[in-house]
């Protein structure tokens, strides 16, 4: 089992969700996050008080999928989340040791 953490542009969330659903990947967890990679922030001014804002709003999509479907899922996310501009985000992949469904204690890929 692999965990995919994709940090994407907030406005790309619907596209990514739809594309993943279309290939049959439905379980996911979404959070609103802030961060920055190479993208530069912007300046905000409130009544003369200046703030440099480096951490920009992003959406993090987390999902755990069977290892066999990893490449397919990655290609789908890349295609759906890309605008080609700086700030499109990143994808991180990691191994998952175990998955357990709380309702009936199913384990492994059957719990996904």
């Amino acid at each position, binding site marked *: 089992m692999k965990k995919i953490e994709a940090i994407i542009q907030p406005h790309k969330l619907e596209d990514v969700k739809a594309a993943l659903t279309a290939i049959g990947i439905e379980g996911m967890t979404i959070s609103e996050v802030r961060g920055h990679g190479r993208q530069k922030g912007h300046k*905000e*001014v*409130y*009544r*003369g*008080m200046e*703030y440099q804002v480096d951490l920009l709003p992003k959406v993090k999509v987390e999902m755990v999928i069977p290892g066999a479907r990893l490449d397919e899922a990655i290609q789908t996310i890349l295609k759906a989340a890309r605008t080609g501009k700086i700030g499109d985000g990143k994808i991180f992949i990691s191994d998952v040791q175990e998955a357990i469904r709380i309702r009936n204690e199913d384990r492994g890929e059957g719990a996904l």
Partner: protein
Amino acid sequence: MLVSAALVLMMTGPGLALFYGGLVRRKNVLSTMMHSFILMAVVTVIWAIYGYSLAFGDGNSFIGGLQYFFLNHVGAAPNPDYAATIPQQTYMIYQLMFAIITPALISGAYAERMKFSAMLIFTVLWTTIVYFPMAHMVWGKGGLLNAALGGKIPCFDFAGGTVVHITSGVSALVCALYLGRRRGYGAEPMKPHSLTYSFIGACLLWVGWFGFNAGSALAASPLATSAFVATHFGAAAAALGWILAEWVHNGKPSMLGGISGCVAGLVAITPASGFVKPFPAMVIGFAAGLLCFFMVTAVKARFGYDDSLDAFGVHGMGGTLGALLTGVFATSEVNDGFKDAAGKTMALGLVDGHAGQVLNQSIGVLISWALAIVGSLVILKITDLLVGVRATFEDEEEGLDISMHGEEGYNFEA
């Protein structure tokens, strides 16, 4: 008049509460709204007991007498000295709304760091020692500065440039200096947590201000219309003035700048609203937009005082500018209610050829500044000795909503 009274109350809650509530950090939103709201209750009670009497009772040049104690003799019969065509009770409730919003304006300076108990004590003493005497001096019968009812130094203040905005704005500066800066000021981000709230609040203020200024004509008269018009034009020009200054200075025109400008203009036009024509009103507003922008950006940064929500920069300075310019632009073409001993209409301001009015206005401004500074300092000292004025480090870090009131503005788990 009753509608005007209701409009002025709407300026405090929800107007000012939303305007200020949006400008603070999210951990202080409820405490800031509470600063405005609690005064709607507290000032009302002291107004009924002794406030109205001290402000509008027959007394000496500085303070009213006690004949309206517990609203005694305040009923359906008009008080012809103030407003001959409405019940005195109507006049009383209308004036109460001014006494509520004035101390609420000060909360912009001590927001996010004052103890709630101290805020209550400070405000009750302040309303008693600063507001009631100032209201009496300017609007009360026989008051030192009353232009209509036998004041020795006739000072024009139609709806509260000196009484409301200078007293509150200057006291705000004293509070900001006495309390010291919020912890982390200049180092940590202190961005407004919801400018959408502030926007709604400012627009409610703009509308409510028609009750404040036009209502001050105390009758459904041509003068009320003239004050309404001057108020609106002043606000519009000030919003443009601030936005223009900001655009040139920062490269971007902001919504916060627009609403700050409109409030600055409404403040500045307040004393002048029943005395000036529409174009001078726009001049006053535009000047206020520029001056207040300069105050809250350059001057505040230069001196480093933490007037959290710019109560001094907007109300203190806008009020001062408006009070002085009233002496310049006041004209009997707008307000012919002032007659000399022979019954002839008197020249009012500089534009009428009465240059001495600018001096009278300056004296009015000086007296309100002096009363606000001395009064606030003494009251802060007393409050500090009684309960301590400032929230503890932990309380301030946690936010006043939880530490003072035991609740949060935004419960995401709910």
